[in-house]
């Protein structure tokens, strides 16, 4: 990069970091940074400071009912969301995608409808966990990735005082117990454990009591 464009960049860097620059100026400056490590490093530092300052934001309680209005809004968008589920990256090392990432949010989330195309973890199989009477207990998901895991969400965790085991069953009938939980583990409604990648092919997940009786089952597909 020539000295002239570095000086130009320096001149606008603060404005860029605080989100003051409009297009096409901001793209032009970001393009310079993408090819100029020293300007990029400088920008990262200043952007980091701007982001850090947000921790000093004064807290103000939103109007009553805010939480339920947010949840209702998300619920209304659930169909679109669940359609993207299987390709949704659950856990992402997305530094590469954020190169030039001034304001993280702006870069990663610039436009609504962007979907996460990175796939460090994708849902391989999932199913509703149902009790023998058919009532739902929660969901089970087998998540592929560098470290495959099974993620269990329990709809309304209740304290029965008992520990239960999570068992995955492969198509050939072989069953593997991958872990166990008690109420305290799932009080927040979520439980997970790492599994071997071969178990991503499991067709059934069973919740088994200490005496071996099956408390609930999920068909995974």
């Amino acid at each position, binding site marked *: 990069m020539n000295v002239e464009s570095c000086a130009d960049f320096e001149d606008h860097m603060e404005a860029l970091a605080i989100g003051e620059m409009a297009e096409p100026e901001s793209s032009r400056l970001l393009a310079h940074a993408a090819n100029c490590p020293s300007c990029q490093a400088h920008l990262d530092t200043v952007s980091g400071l701007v982001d850090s*300052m947000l921790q000093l934001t004064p807290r103000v309680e939103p109007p009553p009912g805010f*939480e339920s209005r947010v*949840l209702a809004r998300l619920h209304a968008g659930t169909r679109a969301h669940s359609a993207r589920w299987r390709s949704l990256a659950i856990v992402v090392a997305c530094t590469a995608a954020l190169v030039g990432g001034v304001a993280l949010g702006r870069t990663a989330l610039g436009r609504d409808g962007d979907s996460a195309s990175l796939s460090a973890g994708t849902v391989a199989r999932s199913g509703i966990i149902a009790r023998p009477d058919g009532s739902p207990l929660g969901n089970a998901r087998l998540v592929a990735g560098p470290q495959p895991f099974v993620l269990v969400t329990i709809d309304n965790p209740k304290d029965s005082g008992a520990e239960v085991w999570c068992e995955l069953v492969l198509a050939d009938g072989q069953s*593997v117990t991958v872990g166990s939980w008690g109420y*305290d583990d799932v009080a927040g409604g979520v439980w997970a454990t790492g599994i071997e990648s071969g178990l991503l092919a499991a067709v059934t997940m069973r919740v088994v009591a200490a005496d071996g009786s099956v408390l609930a089952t999920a068909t995974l597909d």
Partner: protein
Amino acid sequence: MNRYESRPEKDCENLSELSERTISVLRTPDRHDRLPDDALLTAVALGDTDATAVFVRRFQSRVYGLAITITSDRALSEDIAQSTFERAWRHGATYDSRRASVGTWLLTICRNLAIDAIRVRRPVPVDPWTIGEMLAYDPDAPVVNDPADGAIQSDHVGRLRRALAALPAEQRRAVVLATIGGRTTTEIGLLEGVGVPTAKTRLRNGLLRLRAALESEVER
């Protein structure tokens, strides 16, 4: 029955820090601890309703607080705050714990939305209450730890407050207005009764000093 405990591969290089920590926290029999922010966000991104409710409760006063600070408009702020949570829910998977805390990530989303909203609706009057609140830093005041923040984060916030308090007043105002206030350097110039170049210089010098102060605190 073939029972065994699966052991996570300890040496898996590609394992993202977040998934590792999420899994280990969820596995940990350390019971009544609340889910940490990043594990909670993972559950939110997976569409878990209970986790989402907890997530909203945990962050709503900060998100709404930032929106109202930038816009001074209650109805608009509620909409911005709602949109912030919607984006977190849709895009939680893009969160990278190596770059920022969940709180900072969320507030960055909120800030961008608020700035976009006011750029359309300018001019926004400066609310002396919020700006005054933002600037009310007493360097000698004890740092009050918010129990909602983790110990590490509170420590970081304390350092940031001290570093900010040590800035010359005009630089501190420029930094606060530009970041938490979402103001442009042009607006800062107008508010402060100085030209844009002066406002820019104050912001630049303020950020440089802030960085130097934070770095020297780390070395101590």
